[in-house]
């Protein structure tokens, strides 16, 4: 379906995007094709129902959160650069790049460990106040456990989780506490999709 160079012309701001996210030209083309596929009405941007058309997402317990994460607050559509920027979080971490980025000239890339964790944190923290409250945690647990448990069990689990993680005793989990509770998990491996390398 046409050479990659002609496809690249369709992509707005391709060079800038590549630099910002670290994707190669081939990846960008592949993602653009996927974006095109999802965009059923060929509008050049994705709406909520385009995402909901992906059948597997409907079965996912946190599918609605993932979909909402693509939409910037207040906007109803997702254009290609936003699409790519979100997916850039899931690129495998490039250790060489982070070493160079330490110079301070460039901001941390989207797929650094901290930024990956920040993305996950925002999925918990729906009201974007920078903390995971007990109610937000309960909502996540309810979604994941899919009605198979009693309210009591949910409360005890949420209770215990907050006790374990909450170090400054404000009854919520801040981003730093979240990061600390996951320090033993290999996030670089876990939150990377090889397809996007």
């Amino acid at each position, binding site marked *: 379906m046409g050479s990659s160079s002609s496809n690249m012309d369709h992509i707005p701001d391709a060079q800038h995007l590549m630099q910002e996210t670290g994707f190669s030209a081939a990846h960008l083309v592949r*993602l653009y094709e*996927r974006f095109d*596929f*999802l965009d059923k009405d060929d509008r050049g941007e994705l709406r909520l129902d385009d*995402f909901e058309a*992906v059948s*597997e*997402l409907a*079965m*996912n*317990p*946190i*599918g609605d959160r*993932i979909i909402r994460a*693509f939409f910037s607050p207040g906007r109803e559509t997702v254009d290609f650069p936003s699409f790519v920027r979100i*997916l850039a979080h*899931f690129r*495998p971490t490039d250790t060489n790049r982070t070493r160079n980025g330490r110079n301070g000239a460039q901001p941390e890339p989207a797929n650094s460990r901290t930024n990956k964790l920040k993305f*996950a944190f925002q*999925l*918990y923290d729906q009201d974007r106040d920078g903390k995971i409250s007990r109610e937000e945690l309960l909502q*996540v*647990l309810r979604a*994941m*456990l*899919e009605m*198979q*448990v*009693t309210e*009591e*069990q949910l*409360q*005890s*689990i949420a*209770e*215990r*989780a907050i*006790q*374990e*993680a*909450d*170090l400054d*005793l404000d*009854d919520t989990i801040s981003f730093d506490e*979240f990061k600390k*509770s*996951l320090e*033993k*998990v*290999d996030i*670089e*491996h*876990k*939150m*990377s*999709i*090889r*397809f*996007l*390398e």
Partner: protein
Amino acid sequence: MADPRPARSRFSPRLTAAFLCVFLLVFLRCASASRDVVSGSNETWIRPARSTQEDPHDHHGNSTEHKKAFPVLAFNFEHVRKPFEISMWILLALLMKLGFHIIPRISHVVPESCLLIVVGLLVGGTIKAVEGTNAPVLDSKLFFLYLLPPIILDAGYFLPIRPFTENLGTILVFAVLGTLWNVFFIGGTMFAVCQIDGAGLADVDLLSCLLFGSIISAVDPVAVLAVFEEIHINELLHILVFGESLLNDAVTVVLYHLFKEFSHEGSVSVGDALLGVVCFFVVSLGGILVGFIYGILGAFTSRFTSHTRVIEPLFVFLYSYMAYLSAEVFHLSGIMSLIACGVIMRPYVEANISHKSYTTVKYFLKMWSSVSETLIFIFLGVSTVAGPHDWNWTFVVFTVFLCLVSRVLGVIGLTSIINKFRIVKLTKKDQFIVAYGGLRGAIAFSLGFLLTDSKMKHMFLTAIITVIFFTVFVQGMTIRPLVELLAVKRKKESKGSINEEIHTQFLDHLLTGIEDVCGHYGHHHWKDKLNRFNKKYVKKWLIAGERSTEPQLISFYNKLELKQAMMLVESGSTSKLPSVMSSVSMQNIQPREPPRRRAMPSISKSREEEIRKLLRANLQNTRQRLRSYSRHDLMIDPFEDNVSEVHLRKQRVEMGRRVSFCTDSSSRNIHKLSLYYDKVI
């Protein structure tokens, strides 16, 4: 001699050593006595027959003087000889093991496997010197049918699944391609070496060299387990080397049989080589299939054992052993079959069997594998003394050298390919440990022993034994200082954390969702599909009762709560209590700050009831999860008999006093849990 109690600890190493020497002498005397009796027993059997014939004669003749008196004490060793000898050997092995752990200085430097081989050498040497005849050799049938399966089952049943499946590609590459490389490199180069004039090896043809290569190339799971157990390196390296040692069995089996068949014929055609490749797939996949079938059968059987809890552990052992034997019948890979059976069976069986049965399974597996391992190493030592040796300097030296070289080259070469596909790359340090951890062991020896008798066989056996000794002694002893020198990452001791579990599951769902958005059917997508299939169909069939619908998070949470309650009761009387409790709720409370009153509701009646219900329902079913795998450690089992009522009551009082310092309602929560737990015992 002041206090009897402290003095005991001072005396016991010397006392034990003396006792062991005495016991060794007694054992050797009995072993030689058994030999005397073997030759003598024939006469004793014949003599009674003759004497009964004579007796009527004498009876008629000089009656009363020749009448035999009723034997008050008789000596009939032949009757019990075989089980007696087996028990003596096992007892010796275990006493040796005991001795090493009491004498601390040596066991820090020298790994246990080396010490056991040395003991075997001593025993073999002593028997040879005393008797002049040969000591018992490590019989291949004994090894493959009785000594090896417990170790492999223990390894397979407790295999950490997540790291194994995450690194499966890498492990397979090392196991299959690495072993193939080793075989052909060593075989080919040895053939070239044999062509050198003056080495006296001209009669060794290419096929024999390749056969030798196939025996000596495989990394041995027993040796790897024995050495790596003690150095506690990080999970990734452990699973890479150990997984490789398990999965290379299929390659070894195929190549060994292939070359053995054709070493008689003298040449291998291309068609045969292709058949060999097909055979490899049949052997490995067939082995896994056999294990899978038996695993499902075992899981299904365990669903119905709620009324006969006592025999539950036996089902686990027998189904697994049958899987191994059935695979061996068809010359499939028994090791892979055993691993597959254990892995498949475990999640369902654990949901079904009682806590005590689970503990029994764990204890027995560890016990048998420990005994097996000890016996294997001792027999290796004894066989070294016994076996007919044919020492050929060129052959042996080149073998050892080539084994090292080919391993290093293989690992480096394969890693450069693998790293292109890995997300977390293998560093140079990792590669070094993987290369250095390629230990050879008893499997190589037994395979060599199975060869048909010839002059070449003795030469091969000598070389194999030398390589085994070299890897176990030199590499085994130096790997620990090297690990410390290179500052290789060690195993992280992690307590179970509900946060980690919640977030890991959350991330699983997240990654699956992102993969769906990308339209990419990756790792997470298939894992999610498998989980759904498992939850919807398989669990309903294989798990009894209401546990079949329990989500993983809930069972994890219950295990954690139970473990906490148990730990509190156990350690309540020691000063460790504050730190134990801190792992749950007290880590927030620093000793310098005054304890703050948290704005949390006190436990409602209904919640207390709920917790009680949870505990009651799950005390029979839940169990502690083994977090850090160590052969010699078993978690404290509160159901053991030595946890007496008095002990517990004292602990409760102590705990009550300490708990009253804290105003944390959650600590009261735990206190109530532990009180409830006391009532239950």
